[in-house]
């Protein structure tokens, strides 16, 4: 159990000893990895359906599911059975092939992304040289099938939801990629294993070196996994359920599954790129790396649950403006800074122990200054803050109305 990668390695060696051909080894190792990933993703999802419902219930002063099994732990199983048993309706006028295909296809990119994450030192299914690029490329293909779902349903709410999804993807993908870029700039490699190893070697998580990038990434990812305050594509109170309005039964379940797994993928990116992956300042010598990694992933995922239980939703134009006016300039600036810092480090050849803490402190301070400063700068363009309490009057009959434009000019 120390390292599941070693266990698989031992099994493969045994197979080779028995005399299996080399292609069989390749197939078996891939199969083992795929099944492990799939099992992990589904198991985590089942657990987090329960955890999310209980946690949000706790935030909302109610109990949450507590009937099925101890503490309601069997609730996700009951939910899954219900979803499986429900009728799947195909609306009249729908594009039947695409309508059927979309919920299946949407899960594929969500799971495929998982292949490049190093769960432990040797536990990575596909150790790609271009890991970061792969993440950005694959995760954004899911949106294509979301659009297919919205379009093929022949429902106006679905279409609106799909339109919103695509519009948001175009805005936030730019931010997300720029945020992802900060890690390869420092490490000098796009391989996720190298990024983790670099953070372990210098004992410096990138979250300290690149706090601004992490902020941008989390916001951009919250948009892409459709969680409040940015769940605009499904906006329950506005467009019913957005692109999956017409889906029922397990087809709906597939969309939920894809959304959850995409959430885990985002959490895994946060854990790998910014929180040091499976390393924990030497603790990985004692605790299996995958336990550390999973703890970080679940911790990052909790953040999304927390956001969902707390914040209302922004309007689509506000969200777009936020991406282009606020996040994008910050991310560009951050990328420039990261490049400059790496250049300074290379040129001066200063020891890492001296220069990395300096960078960390500088970037942390700069991130605070930039976020606040940029917000204030944009805030000055906004109307003045008005008193957040209504007037209290005693006499009836008077009129206190004042047009908002007038108040803004004053």
């Amino acid at each position: 159990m120390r390292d599941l990668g070693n266990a698989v390695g031992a099994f493969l060696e045994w197979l080779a000893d028995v005399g299996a051909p080399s292609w069989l080894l390749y197939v078996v190792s891939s199969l083992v990895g795929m099944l492990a990933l799939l099992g992990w993703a589904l198991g985590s999802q089942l657990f987090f359906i329960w955890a999310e419902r209980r946690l949000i219930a706790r935030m909302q002063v109610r109990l949450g599911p507590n009937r099925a099994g101890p503490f309601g732990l069997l609730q996700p199983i009951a939910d899954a059975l219900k979803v499986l048993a429900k009728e799947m309706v195909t609306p009249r006028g729908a594009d039947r092939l695409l309508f059927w295909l979309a919920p299946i296809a949407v899960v594929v990119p969500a799971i495929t992304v998982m292949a490049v994450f190093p769960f432990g030192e040797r536990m990575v299914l596909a150790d790609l040289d271009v890991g970061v690029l792969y993440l950005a490329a694959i995760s954004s293909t899911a949106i294509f099938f979301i659009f297919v779902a919205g379009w093929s349903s022949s429902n106006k709410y679905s279409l609106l939801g799909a339109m919103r999804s695509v519009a948001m993807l175009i805005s936030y993908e730019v931010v997300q990629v720029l945020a992802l870029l900060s890690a390869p700039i420092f490490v000098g490699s796009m391989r996720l294993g190298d990024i983790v190893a670099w953070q372990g070697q210098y004992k410096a998580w990138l979250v300290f070196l690149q706090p601004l990038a992490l902020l941008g990434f989390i916001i951009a990812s919250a948009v892409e996994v459709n969680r409040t305050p940015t769940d605009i594509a499904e906006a329950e109170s506005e467009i019913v359920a957005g692109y999956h309005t017409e889906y029922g039964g397990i087809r709906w379940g597939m969309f939920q599954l894809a959304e959850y797994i995409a959430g885990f993928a985002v959490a895994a990116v946060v854990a790998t790129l910014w929180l040091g992956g499976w390393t924990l300042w030497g603790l990985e010598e004692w605790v299996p790396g995958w336990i550390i990694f999973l703890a970080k992933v679940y911790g990052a995922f909790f953040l999304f649950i927390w956001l969902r239980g707390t914040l209302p939703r922004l309007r689509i134009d506000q969200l777009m403006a936020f991406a282009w006016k606020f996040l994008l300039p910050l991310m560009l600036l951050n990328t420039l800074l990261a490049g400059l810092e790496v250049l300074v480090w290379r040129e001066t050849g200063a020891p890492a122990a001296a220069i990395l803490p300096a960078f960390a402190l500088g970037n942390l301070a700069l991130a605070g200054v930039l976020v606040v400063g940029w917000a204030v700068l944009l805030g000055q363009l906004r109307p003045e803050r008005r008193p957040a309490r209504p007037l209290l009057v005693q006499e009836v009959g008077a009129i206190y109305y004042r047009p908002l434009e007038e108040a803004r000019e004053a």
Partner: protein
Amino acid sequence: MGEPLVVNVGPQHPSTHGVFRMKLTLDGERIVDCEMIMGYLHRSMEKLAEERSWTQNIPFTDRTDYLSAMTGNLAYCLAVEKLAGIEVPPRAHWIRTIMAELQRIASHCMAIGTFVNDCGAWHTPLMYMLREREKVLDLFELACGARLTTNYMRIGGVARDLPPEFLPRLQALVQELPHRISEYEELLVENEIIVARARGIGILPADKAIAYSVSGPMLRGSGVAWDIRKADPYAAYDQVEFDIPVGTHGDCYDRFLVRLAEMRQSVRILEQALDMIPPGPVQTPVPLALRPPPGEAYGRIESPRGELGFYVVSDGGPSPFRFHIRPPSLINLTPLPEMVRGLTVADAIITLGSVDIVLGEVDR
């Protein structure tokens, strides 16, 4: 711009607060036009009431505005008392005041909670609001055995006196509520997203509000200081002190703020009522088969949603000759198309939420 997109919001939609339907004509996400279609919940209350005795009509008034049954009862009883010239004992006046204010708190809890839900919060503020509403409903249950459709007021007073444990429990609630309201204010009022979403959205200027005969928190949100509790006092409102919260810009945010401030004022009225409620009878004896003299009367109150009026005409018989309801929800809804034109779908939803309609009352 090609063919405009026509979207039916409702009658089955999570945010229409019942079976209301908005036919939105969209250009992208912008609203070009909005047509309101209602009547899905029409139960013919006004006609039904002409077949029943004056007392038998009280339960109907629970079911028009089902989120504030007490005020419905009160408005109808006031109208009939006016018509028949019945005096109400002072204790009954005070009990009516207490019930009406408790109802206002419960109803505003629901209104604010669902409004923030329409803004996209994932039920969290609503659940907090429901916690307080539950406590008010518990008190109703204590007084009259029912929580939603109370049927508590009678012509000439109230059905029965308050049970002995009612006032102590009300005292406890009144002490707790200001803290809870502060909690909501901290959570919601300065919330950057709510401000961004609701400020400057769904503006109803004061002159338009008056022209549309809008009333209640919506009229006050538009900056008109108008409250029937002060303008035409009924029950015991002439003996209590309270302020009228008034907004200044007439947008969704102002209506939300006015409702929140009104809950505070309601607590203030309840505090005074606890000190001033006198002992005594709670009901003037009224014959069960009441036959008011021929004539007409209009009784109106400030319900949580606005001016709730009952216009009753008697021909001297055992049942009303005409029974007309002036429903605040319906009349507050009428300026909606004008308020949402040019906004986005998301804005239309929160504008509708800020009007605070109850479909039982809109369609009757």
